[in-house]
């Protein structure tokens, strides 16, 4: 009895080791996303996109003949969890590169660890602080809030508006963008004449907007923030009959915003990544093909509206895959070098040209566009 058991066990071991030895090793890519929790509107489309496209790449034969294995963990937007999962990806799973995290706080928390062991990190978060100053192994894919500010102010310059009132959400997104806008304002000759904020759970912004309305210097209003806040601001804005042009940030660049704000959203200008309106882009826009293909594929696969955030995941994954192909190696340091040499990569977010001094590589022109809401839909402002 025992003898037979041992024999069987040996045979099993032999066969399984044979199988393992013959199978080509997979390329392990880690992902840290906030798929649940307060930032799930970022993490959920990111994770879906990653899983969808990893499966697609594998079905087409993988990278350099090897299959990709995506190892992903959900942080719930908690930096402490992000740190633990980063260590797990590095030490336990031994990944060659990491995509994520979804938020700035989490990214800043883990930079130290990826730098120490030398694993390339492709963050999908927004703040410019991630790549400025440049860190050797840290890259970033999403357009920064600084670029959004610049785009808004360029548009204001075109309309001869200089006196800006800010009304910002107090979450990380609103805070960071408010800071960036204040910093770039002088270079566009923009003067910030009012600076209001509202809390995460506020359900009425009338008092802040009244102050802005009664301020005679104000010519134009910008609302950095995401979630419910901007929709409420937009509604209150119409209720108070404020006549100044209103700008919204890329935090609300999804159809959901138009649905919630309803008719109040008419005429509001929104700075947004191009993928949101991929089907409306000029054919001359270089990234139209990629963005439209992504939009159609995502909407077909998941039966939900595309958001700009999933696009970051698409770009992050493909920049890394492209780098692995060019490096013809799965050595993390070689992948890093290849990522840094990425030139003319056509992503959903724009054309990516990375260099030793620029670990974002998007320019304001292709990375962000200005939209206006007309008849409940986006139109591109030329």
């Amino acid at each position, binding site marked *: 009895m025992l003898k037979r058991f041992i024999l069987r066990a040996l045979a099993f071991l032999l066969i399984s080791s044979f199988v393992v030895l013959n199978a080509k090793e997979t390329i392990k890519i880690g992902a840290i996303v906030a798929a649940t929790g307060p930032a799930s509107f970022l993490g959920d489309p990111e994770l879906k996109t990653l899983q969808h496209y990893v499966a697609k790449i594998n079905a087409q034969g993988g990278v350099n003949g090897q299959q990709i294995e995506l190892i992903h963990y959900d942080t719930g937007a908690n*930096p402490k969890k992000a*740190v633990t999962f980063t260590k797990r990806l590095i030490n336990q799973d031994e990944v060659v590169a990491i995509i994520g995290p979804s938020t700035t706080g989490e990214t800043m928390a883990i930079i130290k660890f990826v730098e120490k062991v030398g694993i390339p990190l492709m963050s999908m978060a927004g703040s410019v602080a991630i790549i400025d100053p440049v860190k050797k192994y840290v890259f970033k894919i999403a357009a920064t809030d600084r670029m959004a500010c610049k785009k808004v102010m360029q548009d204001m310059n075109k309309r001869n508006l200089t006196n800006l009132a800010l009304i910002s959400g107090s979450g*990380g997104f609103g805070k960071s963008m408010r800071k960036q806008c204040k910093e770039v304002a002088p270079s566009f000759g923009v003067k910030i004449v009012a600076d209001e904020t509202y809390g995460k759970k506020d359900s009425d912004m009338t008092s802040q907007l009244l102050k802005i309305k009664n301020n005679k210097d104000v010519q134009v209003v910008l609302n950095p923030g995401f979630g419910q806040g901007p929709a409420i601001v937009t509604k209150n804005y119409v209720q108070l009959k404020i006549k100044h042009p209103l700008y919204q940030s890329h935090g609300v660049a999804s159809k959901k915003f138009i649905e919630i704000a309803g008719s109040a959203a008419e005429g509001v200008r929104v700075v947004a990544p191009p993928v949101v309106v991929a089907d409306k882009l000029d054919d001359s826009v270089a990234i139209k093909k990629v963005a439209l293909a992504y939009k159609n594929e995502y909407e077909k696969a998941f039966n939900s509206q595309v958001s700009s955030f999933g696009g970051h995941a698409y770009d992050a994954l493909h920049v890394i895959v492209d780098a692995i192909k060019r490096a013809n190696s799965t050595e993390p340091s070689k992948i890093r070098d290849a990522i840094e040499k990425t030139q003319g990569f056509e992503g959903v977010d724009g054309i990516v040209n990375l260099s030793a001094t620029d670990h974002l590589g998007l320019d304001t022109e292709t990375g962000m566009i200005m939209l206006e809401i007309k008849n409940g839909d986006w139109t591109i402002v030329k």
Partner: protein
Amino acid sequence: MLKRYNINNQILLLTGILIIIPFFFQNDFYYEIAILSILNALIVIGLNLLMGYAGQVSLGHGAFAGLGAYISVVLTSNYGLNPLLSIFISVVIMGLLAFIISKPILKLKGHYLAMATLGIGIIINIILEVEEEFTGGVDGMSVDSFVVFGYELSDSIDWYILCAVLLVFAIWAFENLIKSPFGRLLRSIHDSEKAADSVGIDVSYYKSIVFVISVVIATIAGSLYAFFSGFISPQEASFTHSIELVVMVVLGGLGRVYGALFGAVILTVLPQLLTSFEDYETMVFGMIIIAVMIFMPKGIVSLFDKVVKKKEQSNASS
């Protein structure tokens, strides 16, 4: 089982286990989890003293640990103080703070006490999020490395040794405290405040002493975690963290020192084990907690009691 050996044997056993387990660690990630477990256990030991012995529920201990950690970190990173000195100052400040707030809030009972600590916790969390100049706001701040007497603790093994030593010391101190007149006094308060009061025990004084002790331990453990991970965010002081700590106490076993250890280890390790369930992770986690509470209402350490009882019974019958 554990009760039948004297304190020293238990401590020796614990020390032995702490020395042996690193040999099973395959990489740094195991150290990370072990250190996290021990630091959580430290906070929970203090909280257990408050909840299990003095009978006071605190829903703000995550916030106390977070605030204590922030004070240490800000003193070190922004003002260039030595980390040890920073932690010491932080302990003094937090101890004083705990003493001051304990006077009015420990007069409250039951749900009201829980609500008061909850409120303080949330206020602390908001302060940490809003005072960007010092705390870096919601996105948190990075922490300078932990340098003691010219030696920088950077390897996981260094941290593991430091934390293990602290754990052994904390458990030893806890056990002795409980067996001392002070401990008996606490238990008498827990069993009946009125009775304790009637025999001349200054109930509110002893309650606030225990509160201060637990906050000080939380401050130390919280600060060490911040230095170990090299990063801190207001999430540390969040309401969910406070709840997590209370769950650790209850899950492990209220009023049992090793219960605190089990509770902390299990709640730290379990989420890591459950990641393979992906979308169902939280559900499975919740079901395990519910099952433990239904079948082991006195916490996980009560399992050992049952084993001991059965053995005794079989010994007696044979």
